[in-house]
């Protein structure tokens, strides 16, 4: 009987040791997902005007019946709506469409705007903003008014003058020390 007990005890001990041994060879495997996201450069071109009766600027709307020598409020700024600092440049195109039946070529120099040259530098047909534009920031106005020369004669009666503004932005990081040195300008954003 004693022999049986000893044998039984040995078997149980072996089973216990085997159990301990096998627990030391566990394996496990887990998959994980890493994510890389790209940043952005985004801007909004903003055109505002001061109401004729004063008050805060409102979004710009076309103005009718402008007389020679008059000035129209048009405040042009650019806002950085992206997540990264940006270099900014703006182009301005003027056009005058004469009334139907009027012969002659319009003189575009009769339409002008008061460029703020303290903050903007003109080069290669663009106005470059002198400072980097941080996320959420807005530039100083490129100009605040469009003027129509007093010399505009009768041929300009009922003509249509158009001032088209477009803005571009490119990233600041790894891209030069100023807007004038920057590269990688994208397609234009027209107002």
């Amino acid at each position, binding site marked *: *009987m004693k022999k049986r007990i000893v044998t039984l005890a040995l078997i149980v001990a072996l089973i216990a040791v085997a159990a301990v041994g096998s627990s030391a060879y566990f394996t496990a495997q887990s998959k994980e997902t890493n994510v890389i996201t790209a940043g952005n450069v985004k801007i909004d071109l903003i055109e505002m005007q001061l109401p004729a009766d004063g008050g805060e600027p409102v979004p710009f709307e076309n103005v009718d019946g402008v007389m020679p020598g008059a000035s129209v409020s048009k405040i042009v700024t650019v806002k950085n709506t992206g997540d990264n600092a940006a270099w900014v440049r703006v182009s301005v195109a003027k056009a005058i469409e004469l009334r139907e039946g009027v012969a002659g070529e319009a003189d575009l120099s009769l339409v002008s705007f008061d460029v703020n040259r303290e903050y903007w530098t003109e080069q290669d047909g663009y106005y470059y903003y002198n400072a980097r534009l941080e996320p959420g920031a807005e530039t100083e106005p490129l100009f605040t008014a469009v003027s129509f020369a007093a010399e505009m004669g009768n041929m300009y009666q009922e003509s249509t003058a158009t001032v088209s503004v477009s803005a571009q932005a490119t990233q600041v990081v790894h891209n030069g020390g100023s807007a004038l040195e920057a590269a990688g300008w994208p397609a234009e954003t027209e107002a």
Partner: protein
Amino acid sequence: MSMKKRFFALIAALVFCLSLAPAALADSSVTYKGQADKFVFAPGSEYSLTDLFENFKGVMPGDNLTQQIDVRNSADKNVKVKIYMRALGAQPGSEEFLSQMTLNVRENGGSVLFDAPADETAQLGDWVCLGTFYSGAEVTLDVTLNVPITMDNDFQEAIGYLDWEFAVEEFPVESDDPKTGDETPVELYIGIFAVSVVVIGALLLTNRKKEEQ
């Protein structure tokens, strides 16, 4: 303000700064926590709960970014493990974006585990052993991401997903292994307990049979 108050204010400021430091300096981590919890990946992100690339968000053309990932064995009991990793490549739809940039992964700043476009599996196509980890041991993976300046506007705000896989093998700690962590021989105690229960049971059974005879 008295000298005493100034002293306590200084101590409070120091404690506050020190409490912030670990968060600011924290690396990503892959932690093996034993059979129950297996691997835990941190910190995760809004894109993936297991995301290890905390520093690779909002990348810009020309960026050269680094991310350290600590791989460690934090199993409660005193186990020795081998940890392996492999890359599974880009998820469908992420290939074009991730192929724009290159990833470099080094172990402890030394041997290169991976150096290829981020969408590929390259040198990590097969399992690579990161080493044998005793309880509490760790290695650091230095991951570098290079984004070419030529990456264009098509990839603004793009999101790329790439998968890695980690595996572990547990081994018994041998007598000649370095002594680390809690060295209580729990398994031995369990074995002795089991044997004792059986022996006592057998003795009781024998005694009862003797009494019956």
